[in-house]
């Protein structure tokens, strides 16, 4: 993207002046280098989102923003239903409630190093990953309903975790107002055998070490110590979420004319929050959020089993579980008074600052952990929510590195074996059923996650706490 087409407000803040049908400005938080690396389509999509009814304050793009469908990935926008505000399936994305959960292991690098290979094999065997993989849990229709209503709380009741896990999961593990009856039979069918599966693409299960701490006080509050070994899980609502997303995207596209909403591009298909379709999508989408929370909870259980086999001294406790593809009803301060708005975060992590009433008690003083995934060869980060992020971005921050090149370009440049060998020489074990999948996910195919996190930190979307480096990566 050409930075000269934007108004630079500060080192990492760029504005798009409202023109045409834009109701609010566009705001991109990124360094000049990251802006230059962004596709021109990001600017177009940020501007298009700004035309949607009921949008509040601005249409935002996080530092890792890239070309999505309808909304950019890394896009944040809030809508007021009292002003005709909308909800958009494309503004959430197909992988509803995709997110990251990070676990402490209570072990140090030294304690894990000697069994790293065995642990990698055990994790790859325990957690199904990749195309065509099925979980070991089959849910009948009644059990699916219970899962879609209960989320991680359902999973814990079924012995896939402990109550303490829920204390540090968004929504206490259960998204309220989920409506399983609005989830189609095809979406249900896709999920029956996919619980506890990782998926493919950029999803992963990583064993990591805390490589560097930037903020000792917050790191201590989060229980993070240098060279502690952690586990991070990145995945979402699997086939059920994908099916809900695709079905409602089409339904919104077909119904769009009936709402009298003028949209600049069909891919912004949406429905008023206060419409039957809008309410139905929200109910189904919330069931999708519960599916993702339950899925990550089951994977946590499988990871604990694998660790118990290889490293019985491990005590896997949850740091936090946070989603980055959601639409949530939240109160935000606009003008003078707080008011309820529907915040779409598509590839953007919620980043509630200290004192926020929705925080789990464990983080009320610090702000929430913001978990940002990197690539299998670089680093992931733990950041913390700030008070400023409410004003800057409806309490949102970046979610990952963001792709710098297409899958085909990656495939042209790298071979899977070459990536696996290269990472092995750096002490990183990769386990994946697909060599081609590894090549498409080559670390070099992504932007510099460090630059993304720097920009988020500098502008105040969230603050750096710790950098995590991969030791083992299980990919689909």
């Amino acid at each position, binding site marked *: 993207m050409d930075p000269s087409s934007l108004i630079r407000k500060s080192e990492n803040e760029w504005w798009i002046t409202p023109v045409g049908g834009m109701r609010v400005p566009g705001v991109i938080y990124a360094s000049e280098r990251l802006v230059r690396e962004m*596709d021109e*389509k990001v600017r177009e999509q940020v501007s298009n989102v700004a035309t949607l009814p009921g949008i509040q304050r601005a249409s935002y793009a996080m530092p890792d923003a*890239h*070309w*999505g*469908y*309808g909304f950019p*990935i890394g896009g944040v926008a809030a809508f007021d239903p009292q002003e005709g505000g909308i909800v958009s399936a*494309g503004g959430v*994305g*197909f*992988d509803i409630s995709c997110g990251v959960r990070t676990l402490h292991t209570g072990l140090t690098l030294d304690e894990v190093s000697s069994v790293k290979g065995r642990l990698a094999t055990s994790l790859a065997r325990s957690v199904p990953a*990749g*195309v*065509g993989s*099925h979980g070991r849990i089959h849910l009948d229709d009644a059990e699916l309903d219970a899962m879609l209503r209960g989320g991680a709380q359902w999973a814990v009741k079924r012995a896939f975790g402990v109550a303490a896990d829920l204390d540090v999961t968004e929504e206490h593990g259960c998204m309220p107002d989920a409506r399983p009856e609005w989830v189609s039979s*095809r979406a249900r*069918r*896709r999920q029956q055998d996919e619980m506890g599966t990782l*998926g*493919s*693409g950029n999803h992963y299960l990583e064993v990591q070490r805390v490589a560097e701490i930037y903020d000792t006080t917050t790191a201590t509050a989060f229980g993070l110590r240098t060279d502690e070994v952690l586990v991070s899980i990145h995945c979402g609502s699997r*086939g059920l979420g*994908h*099916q809900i*997303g*695709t079905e409602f*995207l*089409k339904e919104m*596209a*077909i119904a769009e004319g009936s709402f009298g909403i003028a949209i600049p591009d*069909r*891919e912004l*298909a949406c429905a008023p929050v206060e419409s039957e379709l809008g309410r139905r999508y929200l109910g189904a989408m919330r069931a999708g959020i519960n599916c993702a929370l339950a899925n990550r909870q089951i994977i946590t259980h499988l990871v604990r089993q694998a660790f118990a086999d290889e490293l019985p001294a491990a005590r896997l406790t949850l740091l936090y579980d946070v989603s980055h593809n959601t639409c949530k009803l939240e109160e935000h301060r606009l003008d003078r008074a707080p008011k309820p708005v529907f915040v779409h975060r598509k590839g953007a992590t919620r980043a509630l600052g200290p004192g926020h009433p929705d925080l789990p008690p464990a983080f009320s003083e610090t702000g929430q952990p913001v978990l940002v995934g990197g690539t299998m060869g670089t680093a992931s980060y733990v950041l913390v929510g700030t008070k400023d992020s409410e004003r800057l971005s409806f309490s949102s921050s970046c979610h990952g590195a*963001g*792709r710098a090149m*297409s*899958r*085909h*370009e990656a495939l042209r440049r790298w071979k899977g074996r070459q990536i696996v060998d290269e990472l092995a020489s750096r002490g990183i074990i990769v386990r994946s*059923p*697909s*060599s*081609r*999948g590894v090549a*498409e996910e080559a670390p070099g195919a992504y932007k510099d996650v460090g630059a993304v996190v720097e920009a988020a930190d500098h502008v105040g979307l969230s603050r750096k706490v710790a950098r995590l480096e991969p030791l083992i990566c299980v990919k*689909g």
Partner: protein
Amino acid sequence: MGQIQSSGSASASWEHFSHDADIGLVGIGPTKAEAFRQAGIALTAVVTDPVSVQAVTAVPIVCRAPSDELLLVEWLDALVYEMAVRSMLFGAFSVDIADGELRATAWGEQVDLERHEPAVEVKGATLTALQVSPTPGGGWRVQCVVDV
């Protein structure tokens, strides 16, 4: 957008084009149905080499939509659904389109990790870069971006 990978005869072929995080599919054919068929092959090529997929099982697919473009999305979504619930990949297709209804058969087999080396699951078809249009030469070109 640039042509990345393609296959087929002069009159019928498929291509992929670049999209930051996802993949664009193109189907080209002398008829609309053939262009849709080619798009089906392009979809499989996102996951694996379509030539590696044997035609062991036939799966019937019927879908309807109020426009040609949404019919393309329905067609690709139907294939994604069948791949997911059957753990199958499809390498060959027959497609007929009449009065806004698509009737097809997809031939394929169970995913074989060794042989197919499947790269990535497709989540669904999007409305991005979505087009179904006649070409100047009298044929058809269809395209859209799929989310992976």
